[in-house]
């Protein structure tokens, strides 16, 4: 039953979305408000239907309804309650449902928020949102039907991919998709601006919050993805430049560029064309990412099954790019700059350089990701592009971005005077040089690590200098310290939210630098009672035990880890044997710390428990990456807080 009801409902939703998109466009063109209103009802209808379908699918999972093929493929009677819920989006078809649901939710929020505020643009925004939604509903109906009947109904299902049995699987896809789909809104506004010819700054100011929200969720999705990779996959890292990671990273890079370049447009009326191009690029890259993950065109650990879905995504990507770029070419004249770059030493040029570096990084990642395909098309050679390429090209770019992160927010608009430079950067540069000397003295050997940490200190000092100066100014007016600081943060929430996000990025940068430069590992085979040592830790193998879990057999090793001070800890890494998988799944155990993590993976073992092979890693500063994520979250919240008594003027 569920299969038929769900499939039917989705077909209705598809029809509604197509109708709504057309109605909104015609309404926008002819100015007939009734049509736009009718499109709004369609948007509401689509949201209601997709929500019901999501709930229906969840119900099918919870009630083990194996008559639905998707349920039978991704769960079995042993799958615990919690993972039956996350299994809803554990594979291709369900992930598209989640995607479409978020998109329909965003469409509804657009209706509620912008129905009256952005009247000229609004019908076209609605048309684009519903159009994109219609595409995803089409995918759910034709190439990736989620509600498909399975006959005869099997007694038990195949089971969820064991790697997805993790708490990260609820947050990682949700955050990532909220980020991906979120960029649809600025894109829709950009298209609306191009269609109506209102390419001024209205669409930028209206979508500021949307862009920040989408950017934030994308950042969060990337960080949680790293955390999942770190504690589930068991290879001891959080980022591998895998095509799918790259697919999510590219829109993040262009989205970051967009967040910064809009400030120049708001302030100086420059870069109109550029901002539109960036939004189009960001949205296209989210589609490209989905295409890459779901088409199987490029080999990746994440690749879903192949099928005709790739053709659908590629066609839609082509359509989006061609339509958007034709509109851009059509409005070319209206997009000329009104402001001009006055000086190379100015905030404008710092932001421009930031954009250039971000785009260079995007291009590098794009090139590296599709190079295997290019090489195959040109020379018939299949190659794999590894982490060394991405690191070598991107590390200098990222160091440059760190530096600009210190310069950009403080340097003056238009033309920075020598006095302005001295006032803002004298101390940070002095502190940075001192820090570099200290890092060398305490024995940091890697040049990249010294540079990266020095830049981090430099940027942190610029933020401190700014905060101290602004607080002092308030104290002079007779305020007390807590009030002055609080008032400052709230009143200039956009500026200080941005600083806090920068601070979060700095903390992430420290974690990345530390883990790349100082992590150590060893691989060894231990007999029971035997110990091995690494970086001040002694690990003793105490024995193995097998246990039967609801849907797998687990072999757990017990190891005592001591580091000379404090009580020894017991780590229990395991190997999980799932009947539906050919190879066992590693279950990592670790102790996280601010300075370092002890990370233990169980490899091969003797069946009688007499010996076991382990990989022991001491990963330095990795926790800082996750802490950076928390700071970034707080910063974003501050930046999104309602603005107070502001007289229009935008503060960067």
């Amino acid at each position: 039953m569920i299969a038929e009801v769900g499939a039917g409902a989705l077909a209705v939703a598809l029809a509604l979305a197509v109708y709504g998109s057309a109605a909104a466009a015609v309404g926008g063109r002819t100015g007939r408000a009734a049509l736009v209103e009718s499109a709004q009802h369609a948007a509401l209808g689509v949201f209601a239907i997709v929500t019901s379908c999501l709930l229906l699918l969840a119900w099918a999972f919870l009630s083990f309804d194996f008559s639905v093929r998707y349920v039978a493929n991704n769960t079995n009677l042993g799958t615990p309650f919690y993972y039956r819920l996350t299994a809803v989006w554990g594979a291709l078809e369900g992930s598209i449902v989640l995607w479409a649901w978020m998109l329909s939710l965003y469409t509804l929020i657009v209706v509620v928020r912008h129905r009256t505020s952005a009247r000229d643009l609004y019908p076209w925004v609605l048309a684009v949102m519903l159009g994109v939604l219609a595409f995803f509903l089409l995918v759910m109906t034709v190439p990736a039907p989620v509600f498909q009947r399975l006959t005869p109904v099997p007694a038990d299902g195949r089971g969820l991919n064991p790697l997805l049995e993790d708490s990260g699987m609820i947050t990682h896809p949700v955050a990532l998709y909220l980020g991906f789909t979120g960029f649809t809104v600025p894109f829709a506004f950009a298209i609306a601006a191009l269609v109506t010819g209102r390419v001024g700054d209205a669409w930028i100011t209206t979508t500021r919050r949307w862009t920040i929200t989408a950017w934030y969720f994308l950042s969060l999705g990337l960080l949680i993805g790293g955390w999942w990779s770190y504690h589930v996959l068991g290879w001891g890292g959080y980022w591998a430049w895998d095509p799918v990671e790259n697919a999510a990273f590219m829109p993040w890079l262009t989205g970051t560029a967009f967040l910064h370049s809009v400030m120049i447009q708001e302030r100086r009326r420059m870069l109109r064309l550029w901002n539109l191009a960036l939004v189009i690029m960001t949205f296209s890259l989210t589609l490209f990412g989905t295409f890459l993950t779901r088409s199987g065109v490029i080999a990746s650990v994440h690749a879903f099954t192949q099928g005709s879905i790739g053709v659908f995504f590629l066609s839609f990507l082509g359509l989006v790019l061609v339509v958007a770029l034709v509109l851009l070419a059509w409005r070319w004249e209206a997009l000329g700059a009104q402001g001009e770059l006055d000086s190379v030493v100015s905030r404008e040029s710092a932001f421009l350089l930031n954009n250039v570096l971000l785009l260079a990084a995007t291009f590098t990642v794009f090139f590296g990701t599709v190079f295997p395909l290019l090489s195959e098309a040109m020379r018939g050679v299949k190659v794999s592009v590894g982490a060394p390429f991405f690191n070598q090209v991107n590390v200098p770019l990222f160091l440059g971005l760190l530096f600009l992160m210190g310069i950009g927010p403080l340097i003056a608009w238009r033309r920075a005077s020598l006095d302005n430079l001295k006032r803002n950067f004298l101390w940070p540069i002095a502190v940075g040089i001192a820090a570099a000397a200290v890092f060398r003295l305490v024995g940091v050997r890697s040049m990249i690590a010294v540079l990266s940490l020095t830049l981090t200190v430099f940027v942190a000092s610029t933020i401190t200098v700014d905060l101290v100066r602004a607080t002092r100014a308030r104290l002079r007016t007779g305020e007390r310290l807590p009030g002055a600081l609080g008032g400052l943060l709230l009143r200039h929430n956009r500026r200080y939210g941005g600083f806090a996000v920068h601070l979060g990025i700095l903390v992430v940068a420290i974690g990345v630098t530390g883990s790349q430069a100082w992590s150590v590992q060893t691989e060894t085979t231990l007999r029971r009672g035997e110990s091995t040592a690494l970086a001040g830790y002694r690990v003793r193998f105490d024995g193995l035990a097998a246990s039967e879990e609801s849907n797998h057999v687990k072999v757990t090793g017990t190891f005592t880890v001591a580091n000379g001070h404090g009580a020894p800890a017991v780590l229990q890494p395991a190997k999980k044997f799932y009947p539906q998988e050919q190879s066992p799944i590693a279950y990592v155990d670790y102790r996280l710390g601010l300075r370092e993590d002890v990370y233990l993976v169980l490899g091969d073992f003797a069946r009688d428990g007499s010996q076991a092979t382990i990989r022991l890693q001491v990963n330095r500063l990795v926790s800082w990456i996750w802490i950076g994520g928390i700071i970034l979250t707080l910063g974003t919240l501050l930046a999104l807080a309602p603005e107070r008594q502001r007289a229009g003027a935008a503060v960067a």
Partner: protein
Amino acid sequence: MTRAMRWLVPLSVVPVLALLAYGFTTNPRDIPSPLVGRPAAPFTLTGFDGGPVALAALRGKVVVLNFWASWCNPSCYDEAPVLERAWRTYRERGVVVVGVDMQDTPEAARAFIQRFGLTFVNAPDSQGKVAVEYGVYGVPETFFVARDGTIRAKHVGALTDSVIRARLEQLL
């Protein structure tokens, strides 16, 4: 930019889309190389076990010369057990497998060898000279060298049991 020129902007995406569309077609793994039919360039490296690895000393044997790296995932990871199996099966019939590790760190490479329990000889191409001589684009690539020292075939991408068996039976 002139009026006509700006219409070229939308056209710029066509090659990218065409490239992506090309991805739907099959993956040819076996490709011609200018080196096929030529004598294999001699080289001497120091193996991970400390012993010398010289191609000239292997004249009279069929050599499977494999270029790999520990960061080449998943291709090299898929391929390593295949190579090891082939080495164990064919060593008595005069086949030698030689692994050349490129653009790698010694620790990561040793971990890779240990992970797959590779028993055939492996050497780091620390200066990248051998890879250049053989015109290696990326990893993995494998050259099949006949008893007379000429290169008979080149394989790009991960080897499979059937490919390696077919090549070796042809050369033995």
